[in-house]
């Protein structure tokens, strides 16, 4: 690279590069990975490795074919792959994370120009692609394993055929807390939901693990606290209103916050730099929109979960939020008669 770089302001230099930021995100995801292995066994780890490998491989191959500079060392492909894997149910066959990661990297990220130029979070778009491609496999969940029963490897039976590979499908199938919330009250205990001992996708069940990672990112100033706080707060407020309308104001709040992919989305996916607004006000508006759409889909839509759709939709309107929330330059006086 040339030694003299001409670029626009601000010219703030610090130690942070894309690589270090992505490595910090990967570090922050370690608790979620550990939780996924603890609750779903080693097949979860296998899926995560497969997904990360496919993401890195797809990016390397794309750069090779299009004769572009190799970009896999910035680790962003690894983050995309891992986030996508954490969005999958454990009972998916092996090719699901591979195709999902390849789609996310090639179609959502690289075809739009690579990192920083993608219009949507690749992991989110990849998840939605998989949801539309294999709806049944992506929305059926199985119970967490019991380690003392020697089930650490039991979900490897899904490797070829998905859920059909399990001996007794009915016995291990379970609903996610959000799905049971939809049909009355959540059966799952709040503590189980907080720790993650419930049905769900690999990385979403354990709110505790995600919280540890999220707080780490906020403390390290990788992400802005406004996004997760506003996102989760909005969902909580709407759950309160919805509950109040049903006569049980508090019944929906905690299950809505702890269940589903809210923590995963709010801390790790709605905070992607290139697909969220640049200003603090913009981020707040963005996160509020995410929370609003999530609540609307959860309570009134046909899907039990709406976090990924909400983030994708808000990714798409991000340029408009940026335009509306443009900060006033210092010393700038608004012209008389001209309204903002």
């Amino acid at each position: 690279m040339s030694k003299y770089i001409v670029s626009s302001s601000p010219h703030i230099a610090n130690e942070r590069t894309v690589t270090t930021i992505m490595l910090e995100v990967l570090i922050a995801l370690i608790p979620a990975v550990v939780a996924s292995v603890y609750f779903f066994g080693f097949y979860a780890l296998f899926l995560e490795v497969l997904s990360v490998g496919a993401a890195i491989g797809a990016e390397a191959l794309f750069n090779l074919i299009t004769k572009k500079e190799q970009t896999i060392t910035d680790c962003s492909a690894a983050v995309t792959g891992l986030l996508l894997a954490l969005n999958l149910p454990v009972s998916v066959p092996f090719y699901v994370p591979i195709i999902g990661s390849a789609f996310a990297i090639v179609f959502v990220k690289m075809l739009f120009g690579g990192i920083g130029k993608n219009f949507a979070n690749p992991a989110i778009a990849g998840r939605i692609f998989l949801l539309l491609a294999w709806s049944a496999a992506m929305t059926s969940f199985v119970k967490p394993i019991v380690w003392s029963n020697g089930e650490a490897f039991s979900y490897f039976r899904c490797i070829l055929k998905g859920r059909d590979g399990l001996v007794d499908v009915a016995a291990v199938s379970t609903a996610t807390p959000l799905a049971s919330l939809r049909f009355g009250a959540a059966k799952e205990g709040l503590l189980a939901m907080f720790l993650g001992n419930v049905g769900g996708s690999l990385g979403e069940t354990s709110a505790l693990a995600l919280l540890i990672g999220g707080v780490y990112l906020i403390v390290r100033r990788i992400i802005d606290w406004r996004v997760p706080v506003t996102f989760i707060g909005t969902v909580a407020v709407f759950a309160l209103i919805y509950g109040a309308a049903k006569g049980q104001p508090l019944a929906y709040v905690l299950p809505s916050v702890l269940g589903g992919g809210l923590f995963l989305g709010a801390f790790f996916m709605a905070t992607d730099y290139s697909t969220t607004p640049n200003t603090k006000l913009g981020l707040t508006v963005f996160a509020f929109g995410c929370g609003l759409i999530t609540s609307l889909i959860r309570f009134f839509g046909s899907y039990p979960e709406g976090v990924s759709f909400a983030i994708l939709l808000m990714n798409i309107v991000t340029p408009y939020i940026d335009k509306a929330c443009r900060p006033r330059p210092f010393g700038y006086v608004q012209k008389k008669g001209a309204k903002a």
Partner: protein
Amino acid sequence: MKSNRLNTLTNGIVKSNPTFRLVLGTCPTLAVTTQALNGLAMGAAVTFVLLCSNIMISLLKKVIPDRVRIPAFVVIIATFVTVVQMVMKKFLPSLYDALGVFLPLIVVNCIILARAEAFASCNPVLDSALDGLGMGFGFTLSLTFIGIVRELLGAGSFFGMPIGSLGNVSMTVFILPAGGFLVYGTLMALVNFLTGLAENRKYDSSHKEKKNEKEANV
């Protein structure tokens, strides 16, 4: 003169392919190509209407007053669309059901109106017929191709015939509207890439002495 006519015929197939190069008639393209057979049938219907309307409009080009030409074109096109619709309803009822509202919508298909306006209304009958045939053929080819890809990926079959156990792992997204856009966009990029490659080769062979210089600059 003869090669001119040939050009008119082949123009619609590759160089100004209505689907991939002119990007006309995208609504039926995205909507009916969930199966290869539907794409083929839609293409055949459009080809028939395009051929007949081009001939008719070319014949009547001196008669139709300039100010009301668009309504006149639409009436002519609608006549042939009605013919196709009735024939299909009688002899191919399942295809008629599959194409649904997009069959009558051929009336306002922009390929047909565009060819009527841009070509048939200012060219002789034979040329107009060849143009209609070529454009229709290009449209049919594109729709069938998109249909084959979408059906293969989305339902694991080829013209309705299941291929092995591919149906078990097929991705439903490709027969949903989102998959239509995906396949359409990807194929369009591919076609643009390939035609660009072909044009470059033509350019290179005609400018052979300049080629080395150009490569040195790159």
